[in-house]
Each structure stands twice: as C-alpha cells, then as structure tokens.
C-alpha cells in the first residue's frame, strides 16, 4: 500500500544509479535526465552506500555485479536494514540472470530488474512504475 502511494507521489529527490560500466551509466543517466529525473551516479556500490547514508533519494538503480567487494546484493541487504522504505524503489541491472547467486538475489528480493543489453524504453517504463514519474511531468 505504501509502495503504491509512493509510486504515485512525485519524485523530487534524485535517483541513485550504481553502475561501474561508464558507458552504461552514461546512457542510463542521459535517458533518465532527458525524461526529467535527477540522477546521482556512483561507479561502485561502496560509494553508493555512502551516498545513501547521507543523502536523500527517491529510488535506487543498481548493477548486481559491481567491483570493490560490495555487490548489488550487499546494497539490497543494507537498504533492508537502514532504508527499508526505499526497498520498494530498487531496480536491479544484471548481465547474467543464469548466475546462481544473481538468480537467488532476484528471487529473494522480488525486486524488478532489467537484463543487459536493455533498451531505453524498457528502463524508463520500469523506473516510472517502480520509482515514479519525473518532477517536470508531475508538475505539468
């Protein structure tokens, strides 16, 4: 119920994008910003968690396989502990759903995900459903 309510609420705070692959992060950020979202990119999950701890975000998009010893799964479990209200606004990006750990995480979290290589339309529609519409649109 809370998720549905939040989904309808305007997304004022930025979206945290955790993606180590610069080109992927770049086009996702471009696509989202053109649509009117505010995006804070983070090249690692460790950095992403620091940002989450201090800043205010309306949603999180995170790659599952990330460098630096902290993975998408760690992001998920941190959020469940410290920002449970944000869990409903979490989207995973994955390159390998056949990977056993990935499959387990996706099943356990129930979070929506896009599989690389995905199209712009795919990610936009998923962000709109999971995190909410952008500010400008909302304002209009």
């Amino acid at each position: 119920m809370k998720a549905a309510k939040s989904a309808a609420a305007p997304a004022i705070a930025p979206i945290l994008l955790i993606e180590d692959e610069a080109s992927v992060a770049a086009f996702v950020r471009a696509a989202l910003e053109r649509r009117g979202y505010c995006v804070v990119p983070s090249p690692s999950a460790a950095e992403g968690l620091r940002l989450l701890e201090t800043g205010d975000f309306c949603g999180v998009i995170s790659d599952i396989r990330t460098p630096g010893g902290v993975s998408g799964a760690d992001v998920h479990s941190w959020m469940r502990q410290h920002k449970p209200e944000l869990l409903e606004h979490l989207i995973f990006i994955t390159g390998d759903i056949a990977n056993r750990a990935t499959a387990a995480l996706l099943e356990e979290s129930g979070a929506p995900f896009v599989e690389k290589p995905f199209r712009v339309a795919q990610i936009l529609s998923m962000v709109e459903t999971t995190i909410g519409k952008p500010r400008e649109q909302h304002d209009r």
Partner: protein
Amino acid sequence: MRAAKRIREIPSRLNGSFETLLAQFSAATRELKPSIGPTAFVKRFTSNATRILETTSAALVLVRGEDWELASAEGDASRISHDKQVQLAKELSHMKWNSVGAVRFDSAIDIFGGELAEELGGDDLALARLTGSEGDLMGVLCLVGRDRAFEAPDRNLLEALAGHASVALENARLFSWIERSKKQWIEDFDAITDFIVVHDASNRILRVNRSLADHLQLRPSELIGRHMEILRALAVEKSKHVCPFCRDSRAGTEEYVQQAQERTYLVSTSRLRSLPEDDLRTVHVLKDITDRREAERRYRELFDNIQEGVFFCTPSGQFIEVNDALVRMLGYQNRGELLNANLFEQLCLRPDLRRRCVRAAEEGGMLRNHEEVLLRRDGAWIHTLQNILIVRDTAGRVIQYRGLMLDITEQKSFQAQLQRERDFNKNILNNTRSMILVLDTAGLISYANRRCFETGHREIELVGHPLSEFIVPSRRKSLAEVLRGALRGVPIENIELPFIRGDGTTGQFSISLSPMRDEQGNINSIVVVMTDVTDAAVLQAKLMHTEKMAAVGQLVSGVAHEVNNPLAAILGFTDLLLENAEVPESAKDELRVILQEAQRTKVIIQSLLSFARQKPEQREALQINAVLRQTLKLRAYDFSNHGVEVVEQFEEDLPAIVGDVHQLQQVFLNIVNNAYDAVQETGRPGRIEIKTSHANGQVEIRFRDTGPGIEDVDRIFEPFFTTKEVGKGTGLGLSICYGIVRAHLGDIFCENNSGGEGSTFIVRLPVAAETAIAAAAASERAQ
C-alpha cells in the same frame, strides 16, 4: 598149510614109485624156500617140474595184473624164440581159467598150434594153476612133450607141486615186498635231514640216520652199539645227564631248544616203552633251527628298531603286540601301558578305521595307505598313515589285524600350509583386478588367471595358444618385439595394444611383461599383466571433452557478459539519438542500421548464453516420442518436398523424462535441420531415421542420416564450429544443443556410420524418477 595138506593126500593117489616121487618132491620143496627170491625160485620150480614129470618142455607163465609173462622156461621151451614165448603166454591168457580145475591135460596142438607144439616137443600138454591165498590166479605151469600120456597120478603130483609152489611164490612175493619196504624205510629214514638217534635203556645206540652219521663223518653202522656219549658234541657241553639229550627219562616226550657248536637245535624226544620193562627205546630228533632262529631274531630286531609303529591286535582292537616306535608315537610310557589300550575304542577319533578293517577283511585284501587320526595319551591328535594286514586262521576266520603306521602329522601340517599358501596365491591371482598370464619362452600361454576369462575367451582357448593370436594382426609385430625384449630380461611396462576379445570386438589393453627366472637365473617364462583400458580411454576422452566444453562454456559466458556492457551502451545511445529531434532524418536511417546490427549481436550473445546456461528453464514430465513428433511436424512438409524421407522407429511406452519441452524441441529441430542440410549436400534423395529406445535408466534418441558424414565429430559441439559455408550458419546451433542436453543431465554425441555413409547423432536423457515427475508436476501447478 594148504600145500602140506595136499602132500598128505598124495600117497592115496600115487602108485608104485611113491617113495621116489616123495624123495624128489621133498628135495624140490626144500629148495623152494622164499628166501631164495622170486626169480631163482621160479627157475628151480620149473626145472624141478620138468625133471619130476619127465617132459621135454616146461614153462611158467606168471600173471601180473593184465599182463601174462613167461617167467621161466626149461628144455625145448627155453630154446624157442622170444616171439614164440610171447605167443605162448598170450595163448594161455586167452583160456577161460575160471572154469579150469587145478590141473588140466590138453592138446598142445589145439592150444598153441602145430608149429609151436612141435617146437615144444609134442602134443601132450599138462597145465597147472598157481592160485593165491585169496583164490586169485597167480600163474600157470605148462608142461609139454612126454614119451607117455599124462595120467591120474601125474595130476595129483602136479596139483601138489602147484599148491606148494603157489604158497611159496606168494610168500616170496610177500617177502620181497617186506624187503623192499624195509629198504624204502631206511632210505626215507636216511633222507631226513634232521638228526635222529635211537638208544636203548642202557644208552647204547640202536639206530642213527645217515644225516647224523654224515655230520659226525662216520658210517651209520659205526655208531650202532656205541654209547650215547659219542654224541656229546651235539649237546649242551656241561650236561650232567648220561645221555646228552635225555633230561627227564621218566617223561614220555620231551621238547626243548639247545645250542651247541654255534647251532641251535630243537630237541624232540619220544620214549617207546614196551615189554619187557628194560626194553625202553628213546628216540631223539635234533632239528637244526639256527636259520629259523636267526630269521626270527632279525624280524624281532626289525620290529623293535623300526621307526614305523607296528602292532598286532585282535579284531576288536585289543593290542596283542606293539613295538617301541608305536609306544613313542602314541606317547605311552611303555609297551605294557599301550597293550592295555584298545585301538578302535580308545585311539580312533572316528569309527572309520574299524569299519574299513572289516570291509577290507570282507573283500579279502588288506587296508592300504589309510589315513587315520589317532589320539595320543597326552590328548593331542596325530595323523597316521596305516597299512593293515588281515590275518586269518585255517578256517578262514579273521583272528588278527597286523598294522604298520607312520606319523604323518608333520607332512599333513606342511601339506595344509602348502595348500593354504597355494589357495592364498590362487586367491590373489584370481581376485586381482588385472588379468595375469604366464607365457613360456615360445610365447605360448601356460597359465591364465580367472580374470582373463572376462575377455570372453575360455581357458582352453587361451592356454596353449600364442598370446599374439589375440592381438590385432597389424600390431603383432610390436608384441613380438617386446616379447623378445622380455626374453632378454628387459621388462616392459604398460604398452597399449588392441586385444581381440572372445566376441570379436577389439579393446585397448595395457600390457606389461616381466621375465621370470628359475633358480639358476635363467628366464623360463614371462609374466604378463593386462588391463582392459578401453573404458578408461573412452572415459578419458569423454572427460576431456566435457572439461573442454565446460571451459568453452565459461569462456563464452565471460565473453558474453563483457560484450553485454558495450552492447547495452550502443543500444542505449542509439535509442537516445533516434529520439533526439536535433538528429536529422538521414542520420536516423543509419542509426537504425546500427540498432539492427546491435540487436543481431544481442541474439548471438543470448544464444551463447543458452549454451553455457546450467539449468533448464522449465521442468515437466515429458514423453520424448511426443516431443519428437511435434518437432518433426514443423519440418515434414519441407522435407518431403525436397526428397528427404523421415523414418520413425519409436519404441512405444518409453518412460517419461523431466525437462523443458521448448529447449528439447530446439535441440531436436537443430539436429534434424543439420541432418537435412547434410542429406541435401549429397544432391541425392536421402533418408533420416529417428529411433527411440531405452536402457540402463536412459532414453536414447538416434538421428541417422545418409549425408556425407562429419569430418571432426569431436569438435562439432564447440561454439562457432561449423562445417557449413561461411554465412550459412552461426556455428552456435549444436553448441546450444549441447548446453541444453547437459543441463538436462543428458548426453549428446555423434559418430560417423560404420557403413561409411552419413552420421548419427545420439541424445541420451535420464529417465525421470517418480519423485522428479511429482516435483515437476507440483512446480507446474504452483506456477
């Protein structure tokens, strides 16, 4: 007596010249004494008869059984030829003497014929019977030729003469018989080798036999009348008796053994007591038993000193005689103690020995080499080997068993140990995983352990045959080479050779040869150890293939993921550019091409990922035949239009498998398409046979085509490996099939057909356990 009576009758019958005749007769009878002997007697009798009766011829024919023989002839009769004499006796024998009286007057011409009668002196003939005391005919006196006829007084005279002669003749014969008997007896007496001496009450020698006299180097007559003292040398030296052999003169008989002059004698004495009292004759018989004694002594010595146990026992097993060896063998203190024991009742472990003895006795033989376990006095058991002789009395009753026994406990235990060792070695040889053969120096198999029979060859097919017979002909040279090496003492390890099995198939065998040497160090055989490594070789190849495919999968998966990132960026930015209003329409057309190619790349990457994928996406119980039929339906029309016949040989009632129907369809379609392409390549109408079966918990699907076959069957499942022309296929189809089948825990491989035409793809999938089917059904319901 009778003769005397007849003589008394004579006077009443004779006339005139009685005195003369009586004188003559008396003279004749006086002469005819039995003591003169039968030959002289008949001569005188005949001579007297012819003189008294005044005939020219006289012949006496004597009857001896069936033979009639002229014993004496006087006057003319003595001058006739031998043949005539025989004729005379013969003619007389033909007469009926039973009906003839004591004396008969007859015609010589009638009886002997004119010629013989003439020679004998005329026709007048007188015949007088000589009759024995039993009335038997002893002979006939025949008188021929007289100047006057025979008359009644002559008859009386003849009767008297014949009667007297009969008695005298009989006596003479009797006397001669007694003489002969006496002589015979003395000969017999002298022939006895035992020494015999007879003495009287005053110890004077009455008689000795020749053996005794010879022993003393004297004549028997020289000993007669001498005192027994003369025989002292044959007696025990210090005997104080008067007769050296008489020990108790009052006993009727005596018997004892004595030694003298280094000989042993058994002295048997008999005393003949007859009237008068002083006529006591003592007979000593000295039997030289030295040899017998010696033999007995030797036997005794043998019996006592032999190492084998010897026993005599009664049929009930009671010992009668045992030797020391047996006493020792059975652990008794002494013979006496063992003699109180019973063989069958105290010593035998089983009732077997007695039964065997009884049977041997029944069969009339002896018990040979019988093995028997006996109880020693100290309670230990010993193994014995026995030979038992059955002894019978004259009536044939069994009276004794006489046995010889050997203690074979040591041999037995050695034998048992040997047997154990042999069994142990045999067990090792037969239970080892390896096949072990022994070859002689000619390369012929002399031994094969049981494991060797697993090659499908029987013992008789192996033993005696050269090992090379079982090696594929093209490789026999290699074997011969290593055999030569082994015979020179060079062992060979693990040479791999193709071995022909009993069923004709060939397997890869790892063979090691080691030379075996005899005690002198000469190589006398070669030990061959073989291992069938066919399965290992196949398994290793398979394992290598699996490992390779897994490595390829990992590589592909890694590459795919790495490619996904740039691909995502390319697709993403292209999308953004196409949405961008600032981009001119002409540029957008080119962007669409980029998009399209990027999309194609995406498909390839996805295919690669399905090859490497570990898990089927959906799991449900499937009937393979149904999946195949569905798949074939998709292509049936196309196939038949292009002259490719599809033959289905499905085994009905196949067990279900669990899997993803779409993935498996993809596999089958891929294989069928490949087969179709292969058949098409030949340019001829072709055939694809699809056969299903199940065995060993697996369902097998075989796709057999009539295409040109596959050049590299081992690499065909590798990603990007294609035999097709460039651009015709991605080279990913079969690698995806591989990934899917492996994910279903199955197996996929291909082989070229043995006939040289086309190839066969084989897919094996595990039969679903009941629980797996239930689980698959449950998960399906949950979805």
